[in-house]
């Protein structure tokens, strides 16, 4: 298998030595490199990559976990619906334990709400075929899952009782807005390996132009991630920030045109609440008029409380997601907040930073 190359210990060691001896030693300050993909965090933790980097190179996890940025306003709304109407809610397993302001899906389920875990939108549609009640798919995820949602709605023969509650979000604009507002800062950005297959790389040119940030796409093997870090450091040292493709075997610059067309056909971008980060313009995928027959928000008259405030109960996920603190700096981490009894969403999803750290970070 050719993936082996990217996990070859020799290659990985060479990369980490080059980073240490050639590039990082030329920089006399701390360099903050952010990634925005939960799967990258998972690789970094699983391969112990932070342990292979020099002191002054910090890799931080940005807003890369779709479950983590799903607003509790939406979770509350769909759970209320599940408890008050004869409907079935389907969603991804990651979502089940995420607390809303009152309940999580799992707790609502034990109170009698009909909530089923599914693996994909296709699975959700299949389940609907054998069900008599309205089935609402709580559609969470970035471009990578929004695209299959879009193509399913375009291509498939869908039963009348199937609906969608979209909390899909568009990453590049979200991260751009956060940078612009000064909420996050970084010296380099590792572009998400999955999401960028859809969006392509061009959308990130603005990051270089407006903020001078090196942007490099990366895959998920150990060598992939280190390579991206090396390329970023090289750009910093040469003073030529640019968008660079470090994951050519999967990503191309234009992205997936067909998927982009499907997204444009089915969705438009509206402002969306990102949990812990607030409302960001043009980052929420909402169903276009032609597809509004699927829209659970419209068809079930979903109402939101005025002046909604996210209750974080001492949880610092917002800061974790922005990369401003590590989970270790949250005093609830591993004490009151654990994967089995999570306080915040970052401790729930396998893509959440707190969960990743808890399950096996470096040595504390």
């Amino acid at each position: 298998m050719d993936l082996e190359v990217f996990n070859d210990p020799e290659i990985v060691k060479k990369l980490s030595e080059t980073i240490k001896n050639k590039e990082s030693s030329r920089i006399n300050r701390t360099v903050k490199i952010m990634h925005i993909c939960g799967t990258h965090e998972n690789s970094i933790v699983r391969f112990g990559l932070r342990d292979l980097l020099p002191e002054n190179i910090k890799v931080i996890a940005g807003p890369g976990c779709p479950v983590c940025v799903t607003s509790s306003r939406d979770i509350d709304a769909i759970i209320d619906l599940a408890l008050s109407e004869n409907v079935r809610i389907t969603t991804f397993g990651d979502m089940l334990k995420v607390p809303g302001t009152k309940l999580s899906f799992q707790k609502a389920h034990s109170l009698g709400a009909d909530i089923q875990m599914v693996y994909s939108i296709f699975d959700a549609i299949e389940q609907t075929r054998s069900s008599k009640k309205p089935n609402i798919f709580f559609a969470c995820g970035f471009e990578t899952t929004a695209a299959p949602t879009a193509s399913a709605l375009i291509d498939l023969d869908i039963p009348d009782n199937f609906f969608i509650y979209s909390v899909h979000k568009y990453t590049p604009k979200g991260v751009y807005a956060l940078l612009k507002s000064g909420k996050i800062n970084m010296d380099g950005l590792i572009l998400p390996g999955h999401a960028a297959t859809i969006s392509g790389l061009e959308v990130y040119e603005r990051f270089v132009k407006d903020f001078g940030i090196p942007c490099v796409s990366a895959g998920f093997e150990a060598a992939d991630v280190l390579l991206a870090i090396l390329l970023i450091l090289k750009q910093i040292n040469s003073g030529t920030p640019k968008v660079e493709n470090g994951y050519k075997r999967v990503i191309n610059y234009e992205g997936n045109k067909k998927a982009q067309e499907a997204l444009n056909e089915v969705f438009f971008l509206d402002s969306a609440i990102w949990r812990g980060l607030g409302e960001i313009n043009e980052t929420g995928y909402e169903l276009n008029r032609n597809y509004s027959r699927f829209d659970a928000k419209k068809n079930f008259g979903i109402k939101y409380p005025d002046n909604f405030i996210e209750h974080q109960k001492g949880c610092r996920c917002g800061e974790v997601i922005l990369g401003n603190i590590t989970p270790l700096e949250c005093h609830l981490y591993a004490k009151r907040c654990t994967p089995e009894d999570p306080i915040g969403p970052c401790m729930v999803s396998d893509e959440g930073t707190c969960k990743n750290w808890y399950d096996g970070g470096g040595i504390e």
Partner: protein
Amino acid sequence: MSYITLDHGSGGKLTLELIENVFKAESGLDSAVLGDIAFTTDSHSVKPLFFKGGDIGKLAVSGTVNDLLCVGAKPLYLSSAFIIEAGFEMEKLKKIVKSMKEEARKSGVEIVCGDTKVVENGKCDGVYINTSGIGKIIRPIEGKNIKDGDGIIVTGTIGDHGFAILNEREQLNLETDLKSDVSSLTDLILPLIESDVDIKFMRDPTRGGLAMCLNELCYRRDFGFEIFEEKIPVREDVRVIAEILGIEPYYAANEGKMVIVMDKKDEERALDILKSNELGRSAVTIGRVSSKNPQLVILNTKFGSKRVLRMPTTDKMPRIC
């Protein structure tokens, strides 16, 4: 208000807490050691009931037999209690009973008593089986005197059972001859117990896998473990499935393997004994006891980095045993 969730049965941290806080019991050993008698019990549910390499019947016998071996006992007698769902096919039941008999014969135990309950359709997943077992202690192995430098041996590849089941259940349709390793280990482990090698501790790493097994052993103790990724035997197909599902093999259940903490001086001899049996061909030392990081299992990756292998908290694997 708190409720029992599936995670309480996952064999992970929540299970431990349940045992401590609600049952007010200690969850130290796989069997109770009562003078020269070992006694244990285990309930089994698995989906699918029949899988490549075995079925729930074989699992129910070997699980209890292996738990007896863990404390240094020769397994002798089993009971078996069935909870069967109304509507369950008779032919399937016969098949399960047959494989229980076969496995009992293979492991040198007799099934001496039993019970059957039938519950309403929809009230259980086909069939659940509880087996209890009695064994005669050859020499008690109770996890005492574990010290710096003791070796950690696994008797073969890890994750086979968990991933074989997942491969079938998730219909990954991978072309592989991977099958569950479910097997009673009498032939493999009894010679070791009967020899004079200094065994400090044994456990079959079932639910929660190797990660759970080691974490549980150093929980609230003054030692931890250093293990080495490159030494841990994992089948290539298991590696691939693990990669696809994003679940590490360390967390996957095994039903025919043993983790053994062995005094360093006897390690080689122990490995020789294990390797002379087909079931222990790829037995190997994967790491050592270390007092440097008490209560932690440190995994040295093949890249030379270190990370903590945590106790699984929520169920990493869908429920498989």
